[in-house]
Each structure stands twice: as structure tokens, then as C-alpha cells.
């Protein structure tokens, strides 16, 4: 995979500079930190929603800064956590005087750094809560759901938290609704080919020509099993089985689904997957209220995709459909 880049060491800086210069009406740099992106039109008197994480996953994380989504975001190096400093700055910039909810994926470095940053800003008088998103079924058993990684489902939690805060909910209320979203969220993914870190220059992992890896993480962490590539319908059947085994969904349930490409896998394939997912859910009489199909959380140019399910109640549904403004989310 050939990359259209300059110096690998400038990869992150240049790409977020490009983001800000391309959409100045949405994104701005924080004044105090060039690895922090904040909303160009700062919100007032609402709970701030802040995220952060490694680069290489665009639109995750910083692409979701915008009205109705994130207020600020700390940008780490490729696949690496932002530093405590950067996160603390993001929290300060995302704070609108009503406390800040941090929404992040469950990765060791990120969690530790967010915890530390929260301690620091606490001493400055900023109240924070943390939602550690853990939607990846493959990364831990159901009993240990809290240890699961956060992957594409992250975006649902951004949207729910953002909408809830925009509607004037308190920090406690925003926290509770987002927690419910995280509890109602499951993702299972499959990788079919690796990506190449700009600084490393060779694939993170190798898969045989007829191999796929179920449950691979968005950094190329191994998944639960390596299997033979098979027809999309069979694969989707198996993935949905994994979801249903983990997550009881019944007849009258309403859900939103997200079919997410890890990067290279084209939309056509995602829609082939979405067709099958819709058929499977419809057979079970589970209503798909809304499907999101596209590149929402990527791993550079990795090929593969994930299926996310968010079970909705009235509050979550309202928050999902609420207005927002960002180039990567269509209402």
C-alpha cells in the first residue's frame, strides 16, 4: 500500500491541519495545544463532551467534533493514546461551565491518561465523568463486558452524549444516557487485510490469501479466530450469531445498525453485508430503525468491516436522530 504522505513523522500534524483548514466552520485548534481540536462555535452552558485517542482512525476520533457531537478531542499519534497534557487541554477546551463527560475507547493507555487528566482538571474545578466504551464482543466474554475494547460503536456513544448534552441535560443525565447506550451496544468485526503504520512501513500482520480474522481489533490486534474467507452471506450469518449469543434481542426490539468499513473495503461490499443483516434481523422481527453504512471508524487502509447494533429505547432513539453538524454524520 503506497501512501500519499510527506514525512511519516508529520503524518498526524498535517492531517489534522488539513481537517481544520478544510472545514474551518466546524473545527478549530485549541489555542493552547496543537493536538486538540475544538468546535469552532463554542457551545454555552451545556455539558461538554470530550473524546480522544490514537490517530489513523478518521473520522474517529476528532472528525466527530461538532455541534450535537463532541466539543473537543485530543489527538494521539497513530494508534497511540494522546498524552495526559493533551487530554487535559481537550477537557478544558470542551468545558462550557457545566462539567465534562469524557467518552473514550477501552484501551490501557487511553484509560490511564484520561483518568490522570481528569484528576488534574478536577483540581482546577472542572467536574468530569467518564464513559469507557466497550462494544467489541470479540475482546472479552459477556461476564467481563467492562473489559471489552471500544471500536465502531464509539460513534453511537458520541452521538447520544452530544445530543443529550445539547438538549440541556445535566452531567449526571448525560452520563446515564450514554452509559445506557454503551450497555446496549455490541460490535463484531472481521479483518481481511492489514494496514501499514506510516512509521513502520510494513504490514502489522499478514493473513493468507484465503484467510480472515474474526474479531480483529482496529489496531490489528489478533481476533478470536482465524478462518477461511467465505461468501459474504455465510460470514454475516456467523457474525450475527455471535451478536445474538451475546446480546438478547427480542421480537419487539428496535435497533440501529452500523456497517463500518475499516478503510479499504468498498461501499458496495458494505451494502452486500447490510442487505444480509437487514434480512436476518427482519426474520427475527427486530426492527432496524436506521442503518448507517460507510467508513465511520477506520484503521488506515485496512480491509474488513464491522457490524454494530445499538438497541434503542425512546430516549436513545430521539438522541440518535437529533440534529448535529459535522462532515461525517448525516442526520
Amino acid at each position, binding site marked *: 500500500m503506497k501512501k500519499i504522505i510527506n514525512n511519516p513523522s508529520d503524518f498526524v500534524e498535517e492531517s489534522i491541519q488539513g481537517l481544520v483548514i478544510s472545514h474551518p466552520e466546524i473545527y478549530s485548534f485549541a489555542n493552547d495545544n496543537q493536538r486538540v481540536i475544538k468546535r469552532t462555535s463554542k457551545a454555552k452552558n451545556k455539558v461538554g463532551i470530550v473524546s480522544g485517542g*490514537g490517530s489513523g482512525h478518521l473520522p474517529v476520533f476528532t472528525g466527530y467534533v461538532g455541534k450535537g457531537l463532541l466539543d473537543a478531542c485530543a489527538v*494521539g*499519534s497513530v*494508534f*497511540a*493514546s*494522546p*498524552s*495526559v*497534557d493533551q487530554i487535559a487541554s481537550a477537557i478544558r477546551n470542551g468545558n462550557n461551565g457545566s462539567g465534562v463527560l469524557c467518552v473514550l475507547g477501552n*484501551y*490501557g*493507555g*487511553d484509560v*490511564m*491518561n484520561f*483518568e*490522570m487528566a481528569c484528576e488534574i482538571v478536577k483540581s482546577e474545578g472542572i467536574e468530569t465523568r467518564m464513559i469507557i466504551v466497550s462494544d467489541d464482543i*470479540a*475482546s*472479552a466474554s459477556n461476564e*467481563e463486558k467492562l*473489559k471489552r*475494547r471500544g471500536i465502531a460503536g464509539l460513534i453511537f456513544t458520541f452521538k447520544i452524549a452530544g445530543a443529550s448534552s445539547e438538549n440541556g441535560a445535566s452531567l449526571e443525565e448525560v452520563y446515564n444516557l450514554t452509559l445506557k447506550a454503551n450497555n446496549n451496544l455490541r460490535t463484531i468485526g472481521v479483518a481481511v487485510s492489514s494496514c501499514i503504520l506510516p*512509521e*513502520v512501513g510494513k504490514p*502489522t*500482520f499478514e493473513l493468507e490469501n484465503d484467510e480472515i480474522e474474526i474479531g480483529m*481489533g482496529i*489496531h*490489528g*490486534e*489478533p481476533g*478470536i479466530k482465524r478462518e477461511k474467507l467465505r461468501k459474504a452471506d455465510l460470514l454475516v450469518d456467523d457474525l450475527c450469531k455471535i451478536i445474538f449469543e451475546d446480546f438478547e434481542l427480542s421480537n419487539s426490539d428496535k435497533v440501529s445498525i452500523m456497517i463500518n468499513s475499516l478503510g479499504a473495503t468498498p461501499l458496495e461490499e458494505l451494502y452486500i453485508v447490510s442487505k444480509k443483516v437487514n434480512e436476518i434481523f427482519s426474520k427475527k422481527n427486530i426492527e432496524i430503525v436506521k442503518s448507517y453504512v460507510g467508513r465511520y471508524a477506520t484503521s488506515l487502509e485496512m480491509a474488513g468491516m464491522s457490524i454494530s447494533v445499538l438497541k434503542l429505547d425512546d430516549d436513545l432513539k430521539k438522541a440518535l436522530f437529533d440534529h448535529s453538524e459535522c462532515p461525517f454524520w448525516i442526520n
Partner: protein
Amino acid sequence: MFNKLVMIDVFKNLLSKAKKSYDEFNTADGKIGDGDLGITILNGLEEINNNIDKFKDDLSINFMLCSQAFVKKSGSSFGTLVAFAFMNISKDLKGKNTCDHEDIINIINIAMETIQERGKTKLGDKTILDSLSFILNNLKANKNNVNYSELFKSSTKEALDAFKGKKILIGRARMFEEKTKELDDPGMLALSKLSEVFK
């Protein structure tokens, strides 16, 4: 006796060792994680060495520089834990120019406390915490004429051996269950390899 000059020497040697072991660490981490442990260690040590001429007699300053280097260059668990540990060590060593045996025991103690607190790890989870605990025990057991190089090397090796056949209970590795029994924890492996440079 540990002082500024020894510290400079150690970090120079660590860097050259990290360069040599870069692929090995990445590969070990890649088997159960995201394959960046070599990057994390190399980047952090390079950044420390880039700042090594700022080292002062006051060891506290030096450990703070080391902490900042890891904060700046690493976003992975290992790097973050190391950064926090160096920071807490720095706080503890304020004004100190040398470390004797008891100080070194104290340093290891602080590192272990930090990792337990920040990493929410327990002894026995098969992580770098366990390697440190073997070092600590051996430091406590040997007070005179210690060859630190040998002690670090043998302790981290003992730790590796002691955990063969046990599951890794934390981090990305946890999900592999049985598979992790046969594998060394990449962090423990790295500490063992890196220990070969201590003088």
C-alpha cells in the same frame, strides 16, 4: 552507587539494546496485542537520549525528564505506566544526587505502587508488575556487594520462568485465554531483555 553518570550510561545502553530488540518486542506484542511494544520502548528511550545532556546531578530532575519523554512519545499502556512511574520516582528523589541500595529498593517499590494504582493490576496477572516484584524480592534478599546487572537479569528471567504456563490476566492479551499460557508476557520479556544492559 547510582548517580547521574551511571544513569546516563544505563540509558545509552538501554537505547542500543532497544534498537536491537525492536522487532522482537513488536513481534512478541503482535502475537497478543497491537505489536507496538518495540516502538513504544524505542521511541521513549530515543527521546530520553535526545535530552540526556539536560541531565543534572539531581536525579529527581532526570527522572522527570525521562517521564516527560515517555509521555511525549508513547500512547501505549507500557509507555504510560513507565511515564507515571518515572514521575512518582522523580517526586520521591527530590534533591537526591545518589542512590544507595535502600533507595533502589524504594524506586522499585514506587514503580510497583504506581503500576498497581494506574494499571489496576494485581500481582500474579503476569505483567511487568510481576517482574518488578521478583527484582524487589531479590534486592531485599541481597544487601551486600550486589551485582545489580546480574540481579536484574536473573530476577526478570526468574519471573518469566515462574509464569510459564500461566494465563495473562490483563490488557489486550487477556482475551486469548489458553493461548497466553504458552506465551511470555511481552512487557516481562522486554524487561528481561533490557536488563541485560545493567552494569
